[in-house]
């Protein structure tokens, strides 16, 4: 069975641009969470979507937004990129709203 898939794997943007990251959860999983991991730190919670509704939002500015589609895939959007947004963006899925998280390989974003 396929695991959590994310795209793109790497991307380079310039300050002020916009980025869209995509995630497909494990088949049957209804929860998708997004985490930001800066080099040398643990993942930081950005959003959780469960059954297509936002169930949680971390301490990130409104430039960050997300949504979950009817097939449970998800997008993370970041507007007006800043240098500090450079990080590994991890998508994780789970069957229910809590419990073990299955992470994708991540999308590594570099903002120049």
């Amino acid at each position, binding site marked *: 069975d396929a695991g959590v898939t994310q795209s793109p794997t790497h991307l380079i943007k310039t300050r002020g641009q916009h980025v869209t990251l995509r995630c497909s959860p494990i088949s049957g999983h209804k929860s998708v969470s997004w985490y930001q991991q800066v080099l040398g730190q643990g993942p930081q919670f950005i959003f959780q979507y*469960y059954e297509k509704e936002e169930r*949680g939002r971390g301490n990130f500015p409104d430039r960050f937004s997300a949504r979950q589609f009817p097939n449970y895939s998800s997008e993370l959007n970041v507007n007006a990129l800043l240098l500090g947004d450079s990080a590994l963006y*991890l998508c994780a899925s789970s069957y229910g*709203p809590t419990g073990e998280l*299955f992470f994708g*390989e*991540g999308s590594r974003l570099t903002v120049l």
Partner: protein
Amino acid sequence: GQQVMQIPQYQHVQEGEDFTTYCNSSTTLSNIQWYKQRPGGHPVFLIQLVKSGEVKKQKRLTFQFGEAKKNSSLHITATQTTDVGTYFCALPNAGGTSYGKLTFGQGTILTVHP
């Protein structure tokens, strides 16, 4: 808000030596999870502990949940080069919104010298 402290930040060991990482929470936990992230990889779930004083083993890995459910440890016996990576504890949200949120510790980076 909920705070988590994970120590040590780094641990260098010779292959065959033991390794322990500790995780401490500012609040009483309903459960705690542990993840491993290989260099250049993504976090992979290792285990979830739920009961006070719980001890679980996975081959050479021993996980412990404190009696007060505010701390946990991961111990690796006789490390191997395949154990290299960063070990994170992850705490569930203390309450309120963000029901499924996990708060990750800073991680312990383990290097194993052959």
